[in-house]
């Protein structure tokens, strides 16, 4: 993080970036407002705390993973392994509190929160190493763990479903401090933290610089390799957290199911929110809005009795339209 001060002249960065970001957010914001208004008018019981909670709970894990994906995409990369890493983290946690090390339940519980997330982060660093040290294309580098990762989770658990009832652990999926689902609080914290990182820290600017023009960033003294390593590591960590939430909600861990298709949801959320797949442009708040838009569309369709299959087609069209509109603006 010790990039030279000359990298981005602070004046330019201040005057240009915030405006561009807010205009990029306008589209998703309007779409979200329109969806909200439509539902408020036509969907019965939409304006209730319960509906709000249901939607936010369902979207929380996607947002947490998509924030990591946004960082990776900002460097011009992609992370196909997030779903598999969720499965690994979800497979490890129950093993720790069901068979606590040293026979201490407290230790097992503590480690269940920490070790799986760190393991997922380590796998993320492995992705980053393939991208930086071995110069593999991110798509191929993360394809390796996409294919092998779920297998690792299945080998570790021997493919068996782990069911459990452990209220202290399940708090991250079921807890409701002040009536707000705990994972929603976690989601808001993650979004706020990373939005701040991207806007206000040297690291955030370095991430965008790497994605904007890697060669130029390197010449400007940005530690390109370390920045890339960090974004894949962070993406892994966040996937690890999401894995814990999913198994806490389900009170069970199924290595075949946890995080399935998550990479697609996360990429779609980031793309709809205005993050360019080609790198150099990213907005964390946009990703949050993108995920909310996709979720609200799904909810709207299901609430109106449209079958899930049709909802998939509509989701596809929405993604295309959103990405097309953003292309026009650029």
């Amino acid at each position, binding site marked *: 993080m010790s990039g030279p001060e000359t990298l981005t002249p602070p004046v330019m960065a201040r005057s240009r970036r915030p405006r561009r970001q807010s205009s990029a957010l306008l589209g998703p914001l309007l779409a979200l407002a329109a969806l909200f208004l439509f539902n408020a008018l036509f969907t019965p019981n939409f304006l209730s705390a319960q509906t709000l909670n249901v939607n936010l709970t369902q979207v929380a894990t996607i947002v947490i993973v998509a924030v990591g994906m946004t960082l990776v995409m900002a460097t011009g990369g*992609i992370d*196909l392994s997030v779903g598999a890493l969720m499965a690994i983290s979800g497979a490890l946690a129950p093993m720790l509190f069901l068979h606590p090390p040293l026979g201490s339940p407290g230790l097992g519980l503590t480690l269940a929160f920490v070790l799986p997330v760190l393991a997922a982060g380590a796998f993320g660093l492995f992705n980053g190493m*393939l991208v930086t040290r*071995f*110069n*593999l*294309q991110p*798509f*191929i580098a993360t*394809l*390796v*763990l*996409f*294919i*092998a*990762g*779920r*297998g*690792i989770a*299945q*080998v570790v658990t*021997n*493919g068996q479903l782990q069911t459990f009832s452990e209220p202290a652990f399940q708090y991250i999926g079921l807890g409701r401090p002040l009536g707000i689902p705990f994972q929603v609080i976690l989601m808001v914290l993650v979004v706020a933290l990373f939005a701040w990182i991207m806007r206000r820290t040297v690291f955030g600017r370095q991430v965008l610089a790497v994605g904007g023009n890697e060669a130029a960033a390197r010449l400007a003294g940005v530690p390109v390799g370390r920045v890339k390593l960090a974004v894949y590591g962070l993406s892994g960590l966040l996937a690890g957290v999401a894995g814990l939430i999913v198994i806490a909600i389900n009170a069970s861990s199924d290595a075949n199911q946890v995080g399935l298709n998550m990479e*697609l949801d996360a*990429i*779609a959320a980031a*793309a709809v929110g205005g993050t360019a*797949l*080609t790198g150099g442009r990213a907005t964390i708040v946009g990703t949050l809005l993108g995920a909310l838009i996709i979720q609200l569309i799904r909810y709207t369709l299901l609430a109106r009795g449209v*079958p*899930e*299959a*049709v*909802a*998939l*087609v509509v*989701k*596809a*069209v929405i*993604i*295309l339209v959103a*990405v*097309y509109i953003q*292309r026009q603006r650029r």
Partner: protein
Amino acid sequence: MTTTPTARVTPYFRTVQLLQQYGVLVALALLILFGALRYEGFLTSYNVFTVLGYNSMFGLIALGMTFVIMTGGIDLSVGSVAAFASVVAALLSPYGLWPALLGAVAAATLLGLINGLVIAYLNILPFIATLAMLLAARGLALMLANNESVSADFDHGFTAFGQGTLGGLPFTAIVLFVAFALGMVVLRLTRFGRHVLAIGGNEEASQLMGLPVRRTLVWVYVLSGALAGLAGVILASQFGAGQPTEGLGWELTAIAAVVVGGTLLTGGSGSVGSTLVGVLLLGIIFNILNFENGRGTISLSAYWQSVIRGAFLLIVVILQNRLTRNRQG
């Protein structure tokens, strides 16, 4: 590092190219030799045909993917397009083999056409466009099939397509080899093939030279859709049912086969034959694992398969990368 003097590079380049193209072939030959020496029944027609029959679906999809990747694109939708085609085929199977086959391939081709039009004329990145189609085709498949698998008709010759033989060879293997032979001819001997490679090499330059860039791109995705459709027909025919939820992750298996074959994801180069070698290589690794399990020397659960597949992909791409980097000096 980025600019390489041609004079110095040529001999290097040729060795590297030979290694890249024939390295995989040598690996395949060694694996087959290993299997033949170690296991009884490895080279029996039963085993060979099982491997070919099972891998024909991946092979067809990987063939289409090779053309897509050579233009610098990617087609993530092939797995769900195949699932969609399998449902269409099963629904049409009471009318006989040909209506089922042609109808399913036509339906899949239409989805490929939509991919191509969106990518070429709306300028949406192939990754996003085909990601959307991945969702949409799955939705269409589930809609058509009412969320469950659709039994195919067994009386009108449809299931014979996936399970039958001709002159001792399974139909699916013949289809696979004919498709690859055609693919090779198209890539090496037609204008379309040259356009594909030119666009992948440098799209802007191709445009300036007056090549029909958009039209070529559309055709590439049409081809990929059609081949995915054919794979879907084989799926329905082999399993005796249209499977709306099948094909998950097939696109990545196909991409892995293309990459193992040595085609670079950045486009502009590659060979159809290498993809076939890549498909067979991945297929034979599993075949060998099955034999090892059968002998009882190891007992790896099915869950190890994907771990080994991933590790294998990793080794191959790192080796390839080393070779390409040598070329760059």
